[in-house]
């Protein structure tokens, strides 16, 4: 760790990052989108440390969301979409948890959730949009009344307002800002100075990170200051937003990480096979999460041959010709 003097106080292991910054009941935003750049390594560590009652806030999520819910870590969920491409049109454990009334949930749309993070990042209390007018997103409150206005739960889901500037019948939807306790981001690069660089699509990761009280960044590589400062147009977050940095190669597996590796069809198919059955899913967690002591051990189980198959072409960004069935 001493090889990065500028960020020596931020560089740590997964276990320490979770122990220091994540509590039972924390409100957490996870980065990425469905099959891509989910911060899986730290999600597995959260499960291993048996964190409970998480209040998860997300737009569209797949694997990270589903494993966290399946492991029983999530009590409360604000969400736009739970799906994992062709491997799970609807996330399997998410679906079960809602159908069995095991979690409290609130539906929004992707744009609405992104705007809520944006509002949080701008330190404004709410934000207007036209999205959702006429839809049942504005007719159903998912969260029970008794938790409204407590802690990080807004006193209501939304509010309708007439445009105050044109005097006409012109409605807008006001959405409450989000300021999560913790944002988890998996990035390709962090500089020795703490600058974060995400490659490919950034989704709402930047807004989530700026909105959160604590930001934990896991990354594929820690790179020299000279590299990250050479082309700053490509950087995503300045160092002062970041509280913890964990170098975890393959930290998004089995989701994809642009220019590093593709999603892992073999593992996602395995997950699809087991996630629908409670006891098989329990065995899956025992084998792949509780049963490994570190992400290195998990990656060793995935195996070199599979990692070579999903290795991305660094120019095109994905694994060309990968069998994705």
């Amino acid at each position: 760790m001493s090889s990065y003097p500028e960020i020596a106080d931020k560089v740590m292991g997964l276990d320490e990052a979770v122990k220091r910054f994540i509590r039972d009941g924390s409100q957490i935003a996870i980065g990425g989108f469905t099959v891509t750049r989910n911060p899986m390594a730290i999600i597995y560590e959260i499960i291993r440390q048996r964190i409970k009652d998480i209040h998860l806030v997300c737009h569209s999520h797949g694997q990270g969301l589903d494993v966290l819910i399946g492991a029983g870590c999530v009590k409360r969920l604000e969400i736009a979409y739970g799906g994992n491409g062709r491997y799970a049109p609807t996330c399997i454990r998410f679906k079960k948890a809602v159908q069995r009334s095991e979690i409290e949930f609130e539906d929004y749309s992707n744009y609405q959730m992104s705007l809520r993070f944006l509002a949080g990042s701008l330190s404004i209390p709410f934000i207007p949009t036209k999205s959702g007018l006429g839809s049942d997103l504005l007719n159903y409150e998912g969260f029970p009344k008794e938790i409204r206005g407590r802690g990080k739960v807004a006193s209501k889901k939304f509010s309708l307002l007439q445009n105050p500037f044109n005097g006409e019948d012109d409605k807008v939807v006001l959405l409450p800002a989000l300021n999560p306790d913790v944002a988890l981001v998996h990035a390709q690069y962090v500089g020795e100075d703490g600058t974060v660089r995400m490659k490919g699509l950034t989704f709402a990761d930047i807004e989530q990170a700026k909105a959160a009280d604590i930001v934990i960044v896991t990354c594929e590589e820690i790179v020299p200051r000279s590299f990250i400062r050479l082309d700053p147009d490509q950087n995503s977050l300045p160092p002062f937003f970041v509280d913890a940095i964990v170098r975890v190669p393959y930290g998004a597996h089995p989701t994809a990480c642009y220019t590093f590796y593709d999603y892992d069809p073999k593992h996602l198919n395995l997950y699809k096979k087991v996630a629908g059955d409670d006891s098989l899913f329990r065995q899956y967690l025992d084998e792949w999460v509780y049963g490994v002591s570190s992400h290195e051990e998990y990656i060793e189980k995935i195996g070199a041959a599979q990692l070579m198959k999903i290795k991305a072409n660094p120019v095109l960004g994905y694994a060309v010709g990968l069998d994705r069935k």
Partner: protein
Amino acid sequence: MADYTDNEMMAIGAGRFIKDGDIVFAGTGVSMLAATAAKRIYAPKAVIFFETGGIDPVLDEIPMAVADLRVMSGTALNSGLIEAFSIVGHRKLHTIAFLGAAQVDRFGNLNTTVIGDYWKPKTRFSGSGGACDVASFASGVITFMQHEKRRFVEKLDYLTSVGWYKGGESRRHLGLQRGGALAVVTNLCVMRFDENTKEMYLAEYYPGFTVDKIVENTGFPIDVSRAREAEPPSAEELRILREEVDPQRLIL
């Protein structure tokens, strides 16, 4: 028997709506096929983009989710969700969105959230994602449906994405300035919406299917007076779809 599949006919039926200059919002599944096919066959100057922020990717390989790395490769720009939604509703752009749904009603309103009670559902689906947003903002929405009575319903279990709302001028009165349902493309036919009432009507039935079969499988009365038989996919359309768009048969 026709020598093409339902998904092939649907992708081509929807792809034919796209014109050069359109900005096409693609979701997952058949909509990805339709968007890619449209650009390769009918509208090379259309631009495909994704709600995740990928704008005009090369699409040498078909993405199987909107966050697939393939939507980031060779793009004009890789951005994020906020930027993507600034495109969907942009006043200068003609944006056409492809969506899928579990249920649709006669005004093209869509349900992708839940079947049964909202809090204690019989079946929970993925939820809105960006569907509610594009339905609010895009110039037009084309929806893919399996044509079954339980999916074409009088009343949605949950209205996730607004089409023509309650018909007539009701969408505009909600405060939505443009857009609305353009078509519903099913495995049997293409439905469109009446200019005045905004009610769904049968526009084209695919070769080999009767109007009666479509009426039977629709859970509300539909006007069939304007129906005509659809042009089947040509050999060239099928070749491009099979050999260039989805050779791995991930969606086909």
